[in-house]
């Protein structure tokens, strides 16, 4: 019997934004295996033009509803680099704390609400409310905590209000921070249960040699700023992101694609872990070991696990940051900012991978030209190539059906946690 498979997913579900999967196998031969972004393009880079630096973080946040804190911080950092502003230490700590909150919130949303249903063979979390109430309770609790962390530090989970060029404008009250610290400590047990749950899932055994790009941690597992590194050995400075990303336009996609040493590369939790595993918190490293995550891991499905490991890491880090914050006097949290003509680049590890904002300012502090390279833009080509290889490996067997392959490919895309409206910014 000849193998014929047809998968045509219009607007893949449980991902953020609109993307299509198209696979055609005819007589055992792959005719087509595509992952395409069809989301309506949004032209943020154009909207940034002529905007004043004081408004830029607010606008940048609106690129993405899930990683708005990253976009905001990245854009503010680019601006601070352009104006050569150094922010006060407390401000940096608060920003990082908010960033941890976002990482936790975004990863949990993905792992528990979007990816997990596949492992329970359910179309969504909704049936799980009845079937697995204990899992849902944990998910809700953890997510609630991460939201509260962001609310307290950033003023709001989606679209932060406390960050401005020069520092932060809002210092959370000590008693709120202390309350959060206790909650964070308690949440570690919940995370342990989630980790145990994940160790019971079987992830597809799929390996494709991939280049991984992320920030390079010096002393700490990296989240905000620093130099860039790829698992193939390329290193660049923050401002030299262009030779690292090499964006190009694909005619089928409203999102751009990028490449480095190979035809594509990957960013995200797995990339961060692969490139910085030695810096992760020891407790998180334990979880990684238990779930079989070792650098350099080339199985994209393991991104879910890497996200979970990072959750453990950021909870520990957040506790440490809160301890430091409550013990010291906040002092000044805004540096003086004088706009200057010039360019600046900000690189921030958004939950889904490394994110760049690059602005050119005139001397009044208005943007002349903007460029943003977002994680999903960088992952798209890689997803596309992964998919081809996945179909090649699993798709050409007799047992394979349209439905099974559709699920497998959908799970592949989901494991990257793509943020599509972001990618057509």
């Amino acid at each position, binding site marked *: 019997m000849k193998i014929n498979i047809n998968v045509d997913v219009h*607007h893949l*579900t*449980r991902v*953020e*934004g*609109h993307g299509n999967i198209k696979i055609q196998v005819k007589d055992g031969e792959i005719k087509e295996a595509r992952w395409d972004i069809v989301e*309506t*393009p*949004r*032209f943020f*880079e*154009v*909207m940034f*033009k002529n*905007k*004043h630096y004081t*408004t830029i973080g*607010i*606008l940048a946040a*609106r*690129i*993405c*509803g*899930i990683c*708005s804190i990253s976009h905001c911080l990245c854009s503010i950092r680019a601006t601070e680099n352009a104006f050569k502003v150094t922010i006060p230490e407390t401000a940096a700590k608060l920003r990082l704390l908010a960033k941890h909150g976002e990482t936790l919130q975004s990863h949990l*949303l993905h792992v528990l*609400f*979007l990816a997990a*249903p596949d492992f329970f063979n359910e*179309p*969504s*979390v*909704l049936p799980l*409310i009845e079937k697995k*109430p204990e899992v*849902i309770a944990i998910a*809700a609790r953890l*997510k*609630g905590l991460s*939201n509260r962390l962001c609310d307290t530090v*950033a*003023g*709001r*989970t*989606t*679209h*932060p*209000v*406390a960050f*401005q060029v020069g520092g932060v*404008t*809002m210092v959370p009250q000590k008693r709120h921070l202390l309350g959060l610290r206790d909650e964070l400590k308690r949440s570690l047990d919940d995370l342990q249960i989630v980790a145990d749950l994940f160790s019971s899932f079987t992830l597809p055994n799929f390996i494709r040699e991939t280049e991984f790009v992320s920030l390079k941690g010096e002393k700490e597992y990296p989240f905000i700023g620093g130099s860039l590194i790829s698992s193939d050995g390329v290193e660049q400075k923050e401002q030299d992101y262009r030779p690292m990303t090499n964006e190009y*336009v*694909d*005619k089928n996609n*409203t999102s*751009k694609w990028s490449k480095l040493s190979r035809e594509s590369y990957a960013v995200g939790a797995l990339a961060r872990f692969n490139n910085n595993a030695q810096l992760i918190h020891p407790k998180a490293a334990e979880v990684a070991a238990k779930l079989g995550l070792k650098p350099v891991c080339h199985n994209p499905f393991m991104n879910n696990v890497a996200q979970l490991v990072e959750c453990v890491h950021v909870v520990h880090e957040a506790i440490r940051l809160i301890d430091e914050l409550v013990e010291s006097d906040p002092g000044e949290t805004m540096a003086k900012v004088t706009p200057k003509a010039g360019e600046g680049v900000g690189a921030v590890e958004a939950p889904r991978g490394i994110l760049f904002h690059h602005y050119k300012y005139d001397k009044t502090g208005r943007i002349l030209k903007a460029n943003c390279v977002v994680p999903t833009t960088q992952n798209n080509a890689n997803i596309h190539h992964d998919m081809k290889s996945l179909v090649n490996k699993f798709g050409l067997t007799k047992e394979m059906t349209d439905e099974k392959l559709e699920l497998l490919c*959908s799970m592949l895309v989901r494991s990257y946690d793509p943020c599509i*409206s*972001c990618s057509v910014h």
Partner: protein
Amino acid sequence: MKYLGIEPQKPKIAVFDFTGCEGCQLQLLNKEETLADFLSAVEIVCFREASSLCSDDYDIAIVEGAVSRNDEVKRLEKIRETAKVVVALGSCACFGGVNRLKNEFDLKAANKEVYGKDPKETINVRPVKDIIPVDIEIPGCPVSKAEVESLICHVVWDSPFQLPVYPVCVECKQRFTTCLFDIGQMCLGPITRAGCNAPCPAGGIGCWGCRGPAVEPNYKSFFAIVKEKGFSDIELKERLNFFGAFGEVNVS
């Protein structure tokens, strides 16, 4: 609750997304203390971001995002035909949102700048109500989950839904924020509809008017005050245009 002998409805809800950041949809999954109750109060038949199932049988369509491509116009028209109630969720759906800023540029040139020689299809951004009649608007960037919950309560018990008529200042005062004008910054609070609990003034960036005008705002007096406090027309216009919620209000 079965009360007054009124049977609660279990409305079938479908969530659709158009051009936007999907942050408002995300709010639907927020507020964990009531999330499970929220999800069981309604029957979600279509919610691409959270579920793989989708059906064309729904009473209420919650539409997020603005319209910025011709195929979106067609999708919307179809939604209107199916749904009994169309809810515009968030500032993008209600007013166009930040996407509207795009309309100030020449689309051809913009396309060339971003995509080079492979331009992508795009049209000027329009709010949902420009295309189809909208029954209920929940503005906000992002929307407040409390307001969404309140909407659901109202739908379940079939009673009218109302947004606050008063401006953000009331809520701003009620959370003890020092007025931003006092510390030399601008804020659209006095003319913007409350309901968000004033996070932006509390966060120190002032209100940007994402929820659109309050009922009968006193533009004339407000603009005069803003000018008197030393802000320029440009700054004011920039704020008013940011979320596209103040339409063609004339600042002078």
